[in-house]
Structure formats: C-alpha cells, structure tokens
C-alpha cells in the first residue's frame, strides 16, 4: 500500500498540485496510515528525492521549487498537528534577509524545506539588523543563523552576514552558532560566502535545506 501512496504523492508533487497532494495524504490516513508514517515515509523521502534531482538538473524551474517546497511545508504542518506525541525536531534555525534587503521569497523555499525536514524555523522577516540575528539565535537556542541576501550590496555590505560574524566573534559565540548564507550574489561567486565569514551556503533553496540539516547533524556529532 505504502508504495502506491508514495508514487501518487510524488506524482502530485511533481505536478506541483497541492490539492492532489493533500488528497493523497488524506486518503492514506483514511486507509490507516499514521501522520508519522506520512511525514517520515512519504513527505521527507519525496523532498530528498527532489533535492537529488536538483543536482542532476540545475536548471529546474524556480516557480516549481516554490510550489513543491510550499506543498511539503503545508503537508508536514498539517501532519504534525496529528502526531501522537510532539515530534522531536532536528534543530532550530533563525532566518531572515540581510539589513537593507526586502527580497523575502528566496528564504521561503528554504523555510518550506526545513519545516518539512523537521527543523524548527524562526522567521525574522526582511531587513533584519545583524544584532537581531544574534540576539534571536541566543534567545531561541538555535544552532544556525541563516542570512538571505539577493543584492550584491546587501550580500557583501557591512551590515549583512559580515557583521553577524563580527558580533559572534566579539561576543565569543562562534562555537555555538553556525552562520549560513544564500542568494543570487553567492551563486555568481562561489567563494563569496567565505569572504563574508559564513560557514556554508547553497546554490538554491532546496539544497539549502539539506545543507542546513547536514550541518546541524554535524554539530550534534561534535557535541557528543
């Protein structure tokens, strides 16, 4: 039965058909599948499949990324409400766009993916001052600070990721948090993330989800 559901769900996601994806999920629950099984056996493998596809097909359609990430996030959110026990989250990320940058949509894809991968996401919104990234990461006990910047001057400027790194250093917090960045300027120059002091970056929103999850897992291993 589960194979049939996975196939139908993947088809709906491939067609970016949210209504169809929910129909598959609700039909599966009616047949007795648990919300936990739907998330772990259907939704998450589908995202992982999608991420793998992106590396094979880098020109994949951005509109489709938005829609698939949204479907994954919405289905997961609905399923989490139905979990028997509060789910164990992988970790927590504070995310926002750099000061001076109002482009909110890039981080939407990342957030959608992270939520579907059972990562807790704190959205700080757009035009976020560097101090606030650090303050919120501390207050919310996050592992990752994610700064999105879509323009060269916000990606490389003094009030973006660069300043977040500086504050982490000044306050002696560099061991506690990893800093990741994303956005168009980092795609043009694949080494730019290092020069602004970030620990990681990804070329697209879906891959960013995977990079962040891997990074959190790495941090947890180091801590053990």
């Amino acid at each position, binding site marked *: 039965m589960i194979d049939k559901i996975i196939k139908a769900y993947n088809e709906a996601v491939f*067609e970016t058909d949210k209504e169809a994806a929910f129909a598959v999920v609700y039909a599966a629950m009616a047949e007795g599948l648990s919300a936990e099984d739907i998330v772990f056996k259907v939704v998450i493998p589908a995202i992982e499949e999608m991420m793998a596809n992106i590396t094979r097909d880098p020109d994949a*359609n951005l*509109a489709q990324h*938005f829609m698939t990430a949204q479907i994954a996030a919405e289905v997961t959110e609905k399923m989490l409400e139905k979990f028997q026990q509060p789910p164990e989250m992988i970790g927590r990320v504070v995310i926002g766009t750099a000061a001076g*940058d*109002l482009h909110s949509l890039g981080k939407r894809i990342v957030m959608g993916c992270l939520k579907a991968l059972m990562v807790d996401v704190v959205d700080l*919104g757009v035009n976020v001052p560097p101090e606030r990234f650090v303050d919120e990461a501390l207050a919310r006990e996050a592992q990752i600070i994610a700064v999105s910047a879509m323009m060269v001057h916000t990606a490389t400027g003094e009030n973006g990721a660069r300043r977040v790194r500086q504050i982490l250093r000044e306050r002696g917090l560099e061991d506690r948090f990893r800093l990741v960045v994303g956005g168009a300027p980092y795609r043009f120059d694949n080494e730019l993330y290092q020069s602004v002091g970030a620990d990681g970056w990804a070329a697209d929103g879906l891959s960013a989800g995977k990079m962040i999850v891997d990074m959190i897992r790495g941090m947890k291993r180091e801590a053990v």
Partner: protein
Amino acid sequence: MPTGSSSITLTVHAESESIRLQVRAGESVRDVLDATEHRVRAACGGTGACGACVVRLLGGAVNPLTLAEYSKLPPEERAAGVRLACQLRLRGDAEIMLDHPAPPSCWMSIPAQDLAPAPAARPGLTRHIYGVAVDLGTTHIRVAFWDRKQGKRIATRRGPNPQASFGADVLNRLDAALNRAEHASELAMLARSAIVHAVRDILARDVGEVTPMLAEIGEVVVVGNTAMLALLAEHGGDALIDPANWQTPIDCAAPLHDAWHAQWFMPNARIVMPAPVAGFIGSDLLADIVATRLTEGPSGAMLIDVGTNTEIALWDGAQLQLTSAPGGPAFEGVGIRHGMVAETGAIFRVSALPLAESAALSFQFATIADEAARGFCGSGLTDAIAVLLRAGILKQSGRFAVTPGPEGYCLDPENPRTAITSSDVDAFQRAKASLAAAMATLLHRAGMTWADLTRLCICGAFGHQLDIENAQAVGFLPPIDPARIELFADASLAGCERALLDPEEAALFDQKRAQSRTLNLSLAEGYDDRYINYLRLRPLPTAL
C-alpha cells in the same frame, strides 16, 4: 499572416528589407513611416513645405498629386512616380520604394491610436506657447511637443533610455550613481540629453526650426518613477536605496534651472517635476491616475502600470492605496530567451489554428509591422503560454508535457525565434504571480475582493494588445467580467500632458498624492503566500 483590423496595407521597400504596414484611411504615408524604423527625411511638419520626404510610388490606389507636390517636385520626377510622403494618402493597398530614407534614429513617433485626445488649450498664453511633456521610463522615454495656446499636439517621440548602459534595472543604476560621483552626473546627463534629442528631432522634422523654437518653449513637465527622477535631478538617490525610505516621500528636488536651461537651450522653460509619492512609487503612477480618471468613479477602481517597476493603485472611494511590485521586466522581454519590447517584428498575438484532421497542431501569429517574427513581447508571451496550456503542451505546473530540450518549443518549426523555453515559462509564472499577488494583497487590505472591482485599468508594457481572456486563463488577470478591464497605452504620458495643458490638472497631482497611502509588499501580510499559490498556470481563485 493576420494583422490588425484595418484593411489597407502599405508595402514599403527599403534598401535592406521590405515591410508591410497597416494604414488607416486618411493617414499620410509620412505619419505611418514615422512610427517605424523607416523614416523619410523631413524638415517641416508635414505641410509639403520642405519637399524632403520623397518616396517612389510603385503602384496602388492613392490620392492625386497635391499642389505642394506640383511645386516641389520637377515634372520628370513626378512622371517617375516620386511623391511626398506627407502628401501621399492611401485609398487602397499600395507599394512604395524608400530610395533616400532618413539616417537611422532611435526616436519614433508614438502611433496615433496610443495617444489620448487633446485635454485642453490655454488661449490666454501670449509668449512661449510651446510645451513638452516627458514620461521618463526606465526602459523608454516618451516625449510630446505641444502648442499649448491652441491645445494642439505637434508631434511625439518614443525612444530608449540611454541609461540602460548602466543596467536594465533601477537598482543597478542607483548603485552606479552612489558609488561614483562621475557616474551620477553621467547618468543625469544621459537622461537630459535624451530628452532634448527627442525635442530637437521633433523640431527638425515636424516644425522645421530648432534653436529659435527651443527658446519658445515655456514649460517642460517630467513624470517618472522615483529612481528615474532622482537620477535625472542628481538628488535623492542615496535615500532611495535604503529600504527604510521605500514608503516615505523622497525629495528629488526642483531641477537646477540654470544648468538645465543651458544644457537644453531652453532659456524660457519652466521645468516642472511633480513630486513622486514615495521611494518606490513615482509621479508616473500619479499621471496614470489622472489620465484614467481613476478617482472620479465608484470605489473598487484599480490600475496597474506594468513596466520594469510595476506600480498599482486602488481607489477605495476615499483613499488611493498604492504599491509597487517586482515582476514587470518579463513582460518587456527581460529574462525571456526570445523576449523583446513591443517593436517591429515582435509577436503580439498568438492563436492556435483549428486542428484539421490528421494535421499537426499549428499556430498563427501577429507581429508588429507584419515583419518576420523576431521574438515575443508581453502580450504575445501571454498568448503563447495560454495557447500551449490549452493545447496540453504545457501543464499547470509550468512543465512541458514532453520536455522540448534546451532550445525550447518552437511554435513555428521554421523559425527558432518563436521558441518558448522551460525557463521562459518559469519567468512568466513568477512575473504573473507577483503582479496578481500584489493586486490581491492591495485589494484584501482594503477589505475588498475581486468581485468588488468596478474597473481594472491595465497600463504600460502591453499597450492595447493584451488578450484579456488569455491573461485570465493563465492566472495573471483576475476572474472578473472582462468588460470591466480596460487597456491603456501611454497613460503616464497622457497624464503628464494634462498637467502641461491645464494648471488645475497639475494641482491634481498634489491632491492625489495627499489622498494616497502606500503599502510595501515585502512587509505585507499574505503577499508571499498568494505569490506561491498563484504560480500555477490556471485562473486565479475567486476568493483572496
């Protein structure tokens, strides 16, 4: 190949190519050619006084020689079919040869059907009776030259904004101006030179006198988006790039009259730049509102000016709610493999031919000036996506049913410039979702839904060409009665002309600004969600 509704066709042979143009009864051949890249030489306003606009008639139904032609053309030339283009009028299809075209120019006349009727006259004026209205767009500059006393439009021009050498979009130009002072002055100089070039082109070709006439110009009114105004005036650009100011008024400053007078050779011109509303809402939107009389009817009147920076206004009966949205450039061809602005050779309409038995699906195009298709303008792209969707070649997700490969799906297998690629579809989806979500969010914030829209005025990139049903089918325009959707070409210029000709209308700009309230979509609740929900290629949901 089908074209517009007119039935008279003028075939023009020039050195490099031949084009076919649709002509309206009564229009002179010169007026027809002035709106194309094939201009005749000219040094008067089309009165037959200069005798420069010679063409050779090869055949067809035309008016007899006029007195002006008898006086300007020697008998042997008349016998050889030589005519003056300004005197030549078609009575049926005709064919001409352009032996001595004017040197190439980037300035063309705006087609008569895109212009608004003359709004007013100022018979009381005694001196400096001429005036210039300028719509300073990011991509195009539009200029109209007026006899204000008689309320008569003498000529218009449309040409590219030469600042494009610093970047197609507003932010790159602002960035350049902020980084280096000499870039700032170069950007300002480029725009100012372009405006005066357009005016000089009009004076040379449509009036016949340049410098003395420049001194007779009494007023120049310039509208544009805030960034263009700031770059023109070299003032306010630094405030613009800071998002904190996107919703607040930006002082683009009164022009430096002395410097501009000297540069323009217009010593008597009062230069007027109505103030923009906010960092991301320019005076061009105010001009649109004035031109469409948006606030003069019932509430629920919306206006969207699709351009490089798309601006939207909603009249709720008491206030003007204004915003701007990204997403316009795709409709001007930016980011579309074979995208282009609405110029000669642009596909502006696409339809599928009825499927004959056993025949493959084929498509029909209309191109501007009926030339071989060079690419798609905004309306052609919208049609193409709608037609491919209806034929099942495209799916609602934006994927092709059968992947067409990197070269894309060719609507005309013989012409690679009719191809639509996967990434074109993607760019189109994001553009239309952005604009639809912006309209919906503005409406929602005013407590209305699509059903409350009494008017939807579409201005900007599409001109008169957008197929409304197709735009609704792909989820760009909302699902309302198409009779409520109105298409306007060059509305900003029309509003600017009103300000030039009527001092009360000029005061209207201030009144509209005072009535307005701005919304920054990046901070608006619900915009992102709607954007994602509207990405699919299907009609927009009726509920917001």
